[in-house]
């Protein structure tokens, strides 16, 4: 059962990542790109968790946790830059 479900889920998450990447490439605005990057981070967490189940190795989860934290900090920093960079300008 799991042997069939996990590859299907891999395909679905890969599609999700392609769609996020598409939004990141076409924009049109800077906020759209940052939002797409944030979504890409969250998709990566899902992918890593799934790889952990696939490989039967819980060590992948630690990296997923790190990406979650770094992704959040990155999004907050970029949003702050967009808010403040314009003020300085």
């Amino acid at each position, binding site marked *: 059962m799991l042997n069939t*479900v996990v590859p299907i889920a891999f395909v679905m998450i890969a599609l999700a990542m392609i769609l996020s990447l598409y939004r990141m490439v076409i924009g049109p605005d800077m906020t759209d790109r940052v939002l797409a990057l944030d979504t890409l981070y969250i998709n990566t967490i899902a992918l890593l968790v799934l790889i952990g*189940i696939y490989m039967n190795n819980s060590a992948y989860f630690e990296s997923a*946790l790190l990406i979650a934290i770094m992704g959040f900090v990155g999004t907050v920093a970029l949003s702050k830059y967009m808010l403040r960079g314009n003020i300085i300008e």
Partner: protein
Amino acid sequence: MSIWVEYLISFLILVGAGFTLLGSIGLARLPDFFMRVHGPTKTTTLGVGAMVMASAIYFSVTGDGISLHEIVATVFLFITAPVSAHLLTKAALHIASRVSK
């Protein structure tokens, strides 16, 4: 691992992957920024939450002892998703008001 636990894990994985995909479809398809925010904040977060829960059950059943650190990740995701959405919409409003001036 009993067959019912496997069914439960499979169901959670499929639901998680499905919601993750739907969130990204929303991100790619919806016409303006403020509508696009809705996809990732709600749908993708729930999708990853379901996926992480599947992982928690899987490693609790197969590994030695219960696996709790997945719950921390889920809580973290549910706390941070609205915060980043809030900051991004604020930045978008700021930029939009600057352009219209």
